[in-house]
């Protein structure tokens, strides 16, 4: 299938072509970049909502219930859910779909599961491209569900407009709430499984943490209670998500985020491409292999060799 046909298919709402494109993105196929570059001008319309939190805190169920709520409000939905790939075999068991059965025949909901394929940070390398493809496909809201996050999987802030951090009652004391990392990235906190003992205490702990946050903020992350089995609290959460989007627009932060995102993305793409070209050029070259041996035997150090190789590469490219 040609790239032009694929692009046309995605823009015309053909789900199979969207699925095909996301597979190409995952496999780092060169056609994928070409397709994405054609699709880029059609993106930037969707509200991207990141959902992160520890394993088993109800992220998939919450996304399912939020999807139902936003479907009631006539929005179309895309969902990308990321689960870990095995560091040993590269295989993965992607099970987030199990909780999303109720939408499986809704043509306005597109769900895609993704393995991390060795990428750290809570997302897969392909997540950002997949979200962009779904954006071009025309979904109004795109949920990005991270892997069950520990404390430092915070990459979702780079692609989401609104980040929801889920937690559950009884998950550690108030010290956990003041640690750096994931607790700092939330635009909205959700204490899920609100029917369990200790949910009010959890809300208090998070609020106490927010009370002493030195970063003066125009938006203080609300802390909401939900039950993603019954759906209690979900309409309020959906309202809060929309309020946050409105805040981003009114305060000019949406534009700022967009600029920062474009800068980061351009840098990352250049870094990736440069590194790959450099490595491809050097791989197997006798001097390169010799330098590696010298580093291993302590005759040279990796710091100066890296400097030298990069300088030579840039010099040769500039001629």
């Amino acid at each position, binding site marked *: 299938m040609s790239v032009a046909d694929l692009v046309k298919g995605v823009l015309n709402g053909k789900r*199979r072509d969207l699925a095909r494109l996301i*597979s190409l993105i995952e*496999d780092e196929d060169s056609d994928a970049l070409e397709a994405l570059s054609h699709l880029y001008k059609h993106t930037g319309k969707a509200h991207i909502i990141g959902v992160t939190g520890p394993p088993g805190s109800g992220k998939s169920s919450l996304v399912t219930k939020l999807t139902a709520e936003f479907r009631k409000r006539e929005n179309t939905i895309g969902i990308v859910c990321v689960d870990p790939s*095995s560091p040993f075999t590269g295989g*993965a*068991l992607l099970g987030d779909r199990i909780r999303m*059965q109720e939408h*499986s*025949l809704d043509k306005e909901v597109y769900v895609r599961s993704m393995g991390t394929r060795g990428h750290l940070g809570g997302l897969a390398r392909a997540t950002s491209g997949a979200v962009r493809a779904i954006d071009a496909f025309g979904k109004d809201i795109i949920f990005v569900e991270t892997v069950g996050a520990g404390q430092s999987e915070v990459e979702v802030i780079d692609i989401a407009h609104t980040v929801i951090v889920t937690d559950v009652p009884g998950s550690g004391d108030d010290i956990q709430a003041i640690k750096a990392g994931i607790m700092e990235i939330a635009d909205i906190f959700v204490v899920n499984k609100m029917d369990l003992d200790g949910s009010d205490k959890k809300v208090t702990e998070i609020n106490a943490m927010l009370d002493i946050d030195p970063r003066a903020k125009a938006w203080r992350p609300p802390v909401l209670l939900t039950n993603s089995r019954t759906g209690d609290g979900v309409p309020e959460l959906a309202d809060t998500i929309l309020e946050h989007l409105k805040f981003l627009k009114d305060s000019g932060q949406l534009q700022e985020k967009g600029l920062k995102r474009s800068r980061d993305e351009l840098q990352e793409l250049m870094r990736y491409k440069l590194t790959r070209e450099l490595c491809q050029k050097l791989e197997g070259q006798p001097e390169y292999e010799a330098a590696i041996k010298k580093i291993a035997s302590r005759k040279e150090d990796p710091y100066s060799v890296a400097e030298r190789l990069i300088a030579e590469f840039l010099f040769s490219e500039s001629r």
Partner: protein
Amino acid sequence: MSSSKKIRVLVAKPGLDGHDRGAKIVARALRDAGMEVIYTGLRQTPEMVVSAALDEGVHCIGLSILSGAHNALFPKIMELLKEEGADDILVVGGGIIPEDDIPDLKKAGIAAIFGPGTPLDEIIEYIKANVKL
């Protein structure tokens, strides 16, 4: 040109039985063989199976069924895949399926049936050898 194609498999349980032990064991074995396995859970209609397979861009569908409804559900799934132009997806089945039923299921397009006691390696090797990437 592609650098790192990974086999993606949908493991699905169509029909109404709740015996998912076999499906889970197979899902786990395929995972350990380096594949990406999407497990959809119990009680899938043929429409749900096909819609999930298309969205997820899988290369193979593994169907597990122990209710006896395979003669109705498996061909229906093949029919829907054909309608979507997706009959290049490799479809294999497993569960409690009488020998006598296998020829007709194969005629309907099911590539292979793996009954109880099939070594997991046999399933893995079969998928690796027959899947169209």
